[in-house]
């Protein structure tokens, strides 16, 4: 790999100094200058130089090359969460652009290093990905490209079915214990005195014993169930329980590992981009910018935070939120007194001169993810000031129209979009459904139906792994339904009631 040209290396040293002075703390960052084809390639591989072979990357590449060629979009920068942190600069960008990108990158690097949702990610994922690629290639050599590739298709179709909280739980034993019949203890009290056996009926009343027995049996039933309680890590579950060939298990494991690796980035999109934008703006405007670069910088920077009316720009909303938090904590606009004050004038003039803003935003970037970030800091005032609204599609004209500017509604919609990064909640409920070895999933319905055509195809794919009929409980048009695929056809049946997490 080529070393960085002299002038960029100097730039890097300069900006790194500014970033450190502001308290950003990052992994060693290595820049590489690539041309736009390479940039598209790396972007198609989600930032990594080597991935396992799959047509999906080719499709992404195709799309990006096209939109780049037609000038629809341009990838300015790319940085990955590894230690050392690799970042790519686009060859032929102007010096101001490169400055901006570098400043932006240090924001990301700092975020990767400190945000707690990244704390469990493998920082040596470049090697990880390369190893995965080697393993997949080896399977392809042995099993044939088509077999492996179509199996990867199947895995991809399930790769959003993972549990975001799994990395934070205590690891479970990898294998479940051999199933031994649990003896049923009914808690009978023995008097130890044969003479008084007539008392037994009073000490241990039959109804009580019966109740005890029932409870114990239920518990045993529960324990015997696989999984004991509904589980969200479907990929992990399949690894343990599905009848997989060794190579299939390996491929599935690879897909799962990578899905978990990319998860935090999807959980912290707004925060991460907002943080990077906050810092490039700060570093550039206070330190790095030269007078004659101002116009170019302004144009590039405004492109980053440009808004489309029907689309939220994570860069924009993120950076605005950080700035709002900074200001509020500088002026002390938080806490009980602030919350209870409803005098407009007082609130406007509120300034306790605390100057806690900087330390607060550093704390926020450490502890929050997008959902909690919005939940806590998206305030009524922020919402008003930034002119948020909800929109909805007008059925007649097919156009989107502003629906309302009601704060609660806006925030609810926002949170709904972000919760579980916009993915439905799917649980594995029973691996021995109907006592026939069928797999039962359930969808926790939060107001939005599943996309049915996709759900059907996903079930087909799942059946290929499970090799027995698979079903999912869900709700369609407010009616509880069960969709089942038995290997030949899809059936949709009514269910007595909607499924809930117990």
């Amino acid at each position, binding site marked *: 790999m080529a070393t960085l040209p002299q002038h960029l290396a100097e730039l890097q040293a300069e900006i790194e100094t500014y970033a450190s002075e502001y308290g950003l703390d990052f992994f060693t960052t290595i820049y590489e200058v690539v041309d736009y084809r390479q940039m598209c*390639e790396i972007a198609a591989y989600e930032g990594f130089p080597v991935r396992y072979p799959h047509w999906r990357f*080719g499709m992404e590449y*195709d799309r990006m090359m096209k939109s780049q060629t037609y000038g629809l979009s341009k990838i300015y920068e790319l940085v990955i969460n590894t230690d050392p942190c690799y970042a790519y600069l686009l060859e032929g960008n102007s010096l101001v652009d490169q400055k901006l990108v570098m400043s932006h990158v240090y924001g990301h690097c700092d975020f990767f290093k400190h945000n707690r949702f990244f704390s469990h990610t493998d920082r040596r994922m470049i090697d990880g990905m390369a190893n995965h690629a080697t393993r997949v290639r080896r399977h392809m050599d042995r099993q044939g490209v088509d077999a492996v590739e179509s199996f990867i298709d199947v895995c991809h179709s*399930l790769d959003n079915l993972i549990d975001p909280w799994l990395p934070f739980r205590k690891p479970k034993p990898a294998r479940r214990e051999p199933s031994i019949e649990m003896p049923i203890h009914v808690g009978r009290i023995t008097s130890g005195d044969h003479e008084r056996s007539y008392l037994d009926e009073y000490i241990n009343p039959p109804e009580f014993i019966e109740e005890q027995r029932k409870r114990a049996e239920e518990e045993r039933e529960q324990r015997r169930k696989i999984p004991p309680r509904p589980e969200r890590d479907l990929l992990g579950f399949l690894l343990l329980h599905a009848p997989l060939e060794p190579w299939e298990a390996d491929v599935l494991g690879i897909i799962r590992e990578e899905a978990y690796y990319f998860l935090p980035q999807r959980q912290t999109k707004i925060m991460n981009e907002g943080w990077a934008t906050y810092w490039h703006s700060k570093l550039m405007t206070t330190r790095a910018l030269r007078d004659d670069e101002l116009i170019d910088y302004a144009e590039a920077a405004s492109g980053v935070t440009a808004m489309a009316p*029907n689309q939220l720009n994570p860069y924009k909303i993120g950076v605005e939120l950080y700035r709002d938090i900074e200001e509020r904590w500088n002026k002390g606009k938080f806490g009980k007194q602030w919350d209870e004050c409803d005098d407009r004038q007082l609130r406007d003039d509120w300034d306790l001169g605390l100057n806690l803003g900087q330390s607060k935003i550093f704390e926020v970037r450490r502890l929050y993810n997008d959902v909690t970030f919005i939940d806590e800091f998206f305030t009524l005032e922020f919402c008003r000031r930034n002119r948020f609204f909800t929109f909805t599609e007008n059925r007649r004209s097919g156009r989107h129209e502003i629906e309302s500017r009601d704060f609660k509604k806006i925030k609810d*919609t926002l949170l709904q979009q972000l919760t579980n990064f916009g993915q439905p909640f799917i649980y594995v409920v029973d691996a021995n459904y109907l006592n026939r070895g069928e797999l039962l999933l359930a969808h926790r319905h939060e107001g*939005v139906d599943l996309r049915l055509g996709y759900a059907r195809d996903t079930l087909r794919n799942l059946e290929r792994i499970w090799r027995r009929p698979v079903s999912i409980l869900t709700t369609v048009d407010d009616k509880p339904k069960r969709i089942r695929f038995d290997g030949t056809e899809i059936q949709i049946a009514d269910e007595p009631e909607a499924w809930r997490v117990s």
Partner: protein
Amino acid sequence: MISRIEKDHRRFREIVRGRIRENLRRYVSRGDMISRKGKETVSIPMPQIDIPRFVHGDNKGQGVGQGEGEPGDPISEGEGEPGAGKAGEGEGDKAVEVEVTLDELAAIMGEELGLPRIEPRGSQNLETVKDRYVGLRTTGPESLRHFKATFKRALRRQIAMGTYDPKRPIIVPVREDRRYRSWKSEPKPQSNAVIIYMMDVSGSMGDEQKEIVRIESFWIDTWLRSQYKGLESRYIIHDATAREVEREVFFSTRESGGTMISSAYRKCAELVEREFDPSNWNIYAFHFSDGDNWSVDDTAACIRLLRDTLIPASNQFGYGQVESPYGSGQFIKDLRAAFGEEELLVTSEIKTKDDIMDSIREFLKGGR
């Protein structure tokens, strides 16, 4: 580094080809693809190439936005991601539009329909070879010696050897310094195939019939073009009289006269005689009509023309009959009765758009 993504990219293209093949019948029977034709490529919408997942369905177009406006105001559709979009964030359900070249499309169609490759006739004498001097080599006749290159070589050698004296700049080339012009023979393909399309535009041919003709001739065109370099096409329309027209006119005109098919055949025969010598040209003639000819006498004239002039001259004469609510459809029966086993005359009935594929196969399966 690049080769890896190119492998994946190629794999993606293969999958796309596979998809097109699976759905070829649908694409063929739909006319909208033709209008999508760029210079050499066609882009095909392909919605189903996405990977299915459990995802949320239609949330009634709801969302959160930012900006001015009152409730009820329409908002303009935003254009994609902002400038510095990070890659791979699109989780969307956008239909993928794939571009394929016409050659590729023809190949797919050929494979799918099992069309044989066409053996051209009389092509040798039409492929002219042109010699061009393109480079240098170390051997050759003295008449082709390249003086400048030889001199430069010699100069370079003498400088390297230290025998060059700037004060007495004498250059003496030796055998190894000599350079000679070399040439390459480039075959220059000349167009040696022509398609002559004839269409009945009499009052009984409605828009739907024309659409069928349009689609079918597009595909025939695509296939034959992939087989010959520099294919020419000519267009003749006729009702009671025939005339040669431009391509655009061919597909858009609607006359409203009676129908005398012989007029078109006569025109076609004239055209062949005037411009396309059958011994050198591969001639394909296709005639589309609703089969409602004016009179028995005219039909007899047509048969005579076909037997004496057109069929001997062409690689193949195709007659496609589209069904029209007004026509009797008699002509195809007359042709079949008259020619029976004649191989070079291919007839095909196209009742609806769905029959287009089969009709194309009928026309082209002979490989002539």
